[in-house]
């Protein structure tokens, strides 16, 4: 049984650490609102970091050219003064209202958050491991097919089949070999995209006979009641059947809407409907900004998400500090804003 960690309490939880979620920290921070960010990825940046870190973006105001990774790094620098707390490798599965101005969120790692407002900046949805389109694979998932490693000890004494040629495949080959009963690595070619050091270490294990390497691709899974017994690999030498009771396929990530659809919010073709004054959803106190929202005239652009973050923050401020007098201020000239930014 997994234990539930004690809940984390904060002003605002932001779901998604893409560019819009990151910039929301800034706009909320200027208003003295503290944020925790949750993302299923292992790092910030959303699509910019995952899909096009090296590609240039030409339409960020005042940056004639900036790459996806550079934009992410600049945003992280910009929001640093507000000390946002990041929770990576976790997917938010549930949002529940537990009071007038109070929500409880739960992640797939059993972490709970209690907050006053929720900002959904889930972009194109959660990045999810690709599922090899092999017949019947769903039946094995969670039992003998895993797309990530949460606890290494789960793999102790297993006959493990790892498929892929990137960093995930090789890192787990290296880390799990000492624990598993046997490890077979399968890749479609004898060339690996992973870090050179990992490739060298894997080659050494191969030479020492500690792992088995097979050139080829999976074609069939065999087993019963969710328990895998073997996987058929087809390669240049023909077909091989590998006995294994655990499969780890690493084929990268794809964006899936995921749990967003289950949160009881009004949707418009898989996007969350919001107003254009506050970017609030059909559920008061829950906001949606960036690629995940919809309103008439919506453009899925980073700059639109930034604007949405600024307006959303005003309404959140109103929820959290109902008695605070709202004074409009510029960062250029307001000494109180500059103090918050740590520049004064």
């Amino acid at each position, binding site marked *: 049984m997994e234990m539930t960690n004690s809940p984390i309490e904060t002003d605002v939880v932001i779901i998604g650490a893409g560019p819009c979620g990151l910039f929301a920290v800034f706009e909320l921070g200027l208003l003295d609102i503290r944020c925790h960010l949750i993302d299923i990825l292992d790092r910030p940046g959303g699509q910019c970091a*995952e*899909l*096009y870190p090296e*590609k240039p973006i030409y339409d960020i105001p005042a940056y004639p050219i900036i790459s996806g990774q550079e934009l992410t790094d600049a945003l992280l620098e910009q929001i640093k003064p507000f000390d946002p707390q990041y929770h990576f490798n976790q997917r938010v599965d549930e949002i529940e209202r537990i009071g007038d101005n109070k929500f409880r969120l739960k992640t797939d790692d059993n972490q709970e958050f209690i907050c006053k407002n929720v900002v959904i900046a889930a972009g*194109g949805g959660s990045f999810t491991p*690709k*599922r*090899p*389109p092999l017949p019947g694979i769903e039946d094995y998932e969670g039992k003998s097919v895993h797309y990530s490693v949460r606890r290494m000890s789960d793999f102790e004494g297993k006959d493990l089949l790892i498929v*892929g*040629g*990137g960093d995930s495949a090789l890192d787990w080959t290296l880390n799990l070999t000492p624990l598993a009963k046997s490890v077979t690595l399968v*890749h*479609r*070619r004898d*060339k690996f*995209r992973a870090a050179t050091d990992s490739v060298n270490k894997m080659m050494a294990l191969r030479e020492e006979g500690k792992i088995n390497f097979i050139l080829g*691709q999976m074609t069939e899974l065999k087993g019963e009641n969710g328990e895998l017994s073997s996987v058929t690999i087809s390669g240049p030498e023909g077909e091989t059947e590998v006995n294994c009771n655990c499969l780890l396929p690493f*084929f*990268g990530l*794809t*964006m899936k809407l995921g749990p967003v659809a289950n949160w009881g919010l009004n949707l418009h073709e898989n996007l969350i409907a919001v107003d254009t004054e506050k970017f609030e959803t059909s559920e008061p106190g829950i906001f949606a900004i960036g690629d995940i929202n919809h309103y008439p005239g919506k453009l899925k652009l980073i700059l639109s998400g930034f604007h949405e973050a600024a307006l959303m923050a005003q309404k959140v401020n109103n929820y959290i500090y109902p008695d605070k007098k709202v004074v409009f201020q510029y960062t250029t000239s307001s000494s109180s804003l500059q103090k918050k930014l740590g520049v004064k």
Partner: protein
Amino acid sequence: MPKITFIEHDGTTNEVEGEVGMTVMELARKHDIPGIEAECGGACSCATCHVYVDDAWTAKTGSPEEMEEDMLDFAFDVRANSRLSCQIKITDELDGLIVRTPEKQF
């Protein structure tokens, strides 16, 4: 304008006219050809635009560059004639090109 034929896994055939300079992926998206998702919009970083080039055309389309070959590791059922369609630029030479789309892009 070069004509390109897309054949779905079930044999459904779509012949469309391409423009020189656009990619085979962009052409497919423009005409809503099923079986090409192109999640990353042509950045060569998702492998959901995977196609099989008809054997008669592989010489003309050429072979994948290193980055594309690396990305093909993230495609399923990769064969000798596999390409990422966002990396095939349409030229006059490719008039008549035939590509097949896989049953699933994952």
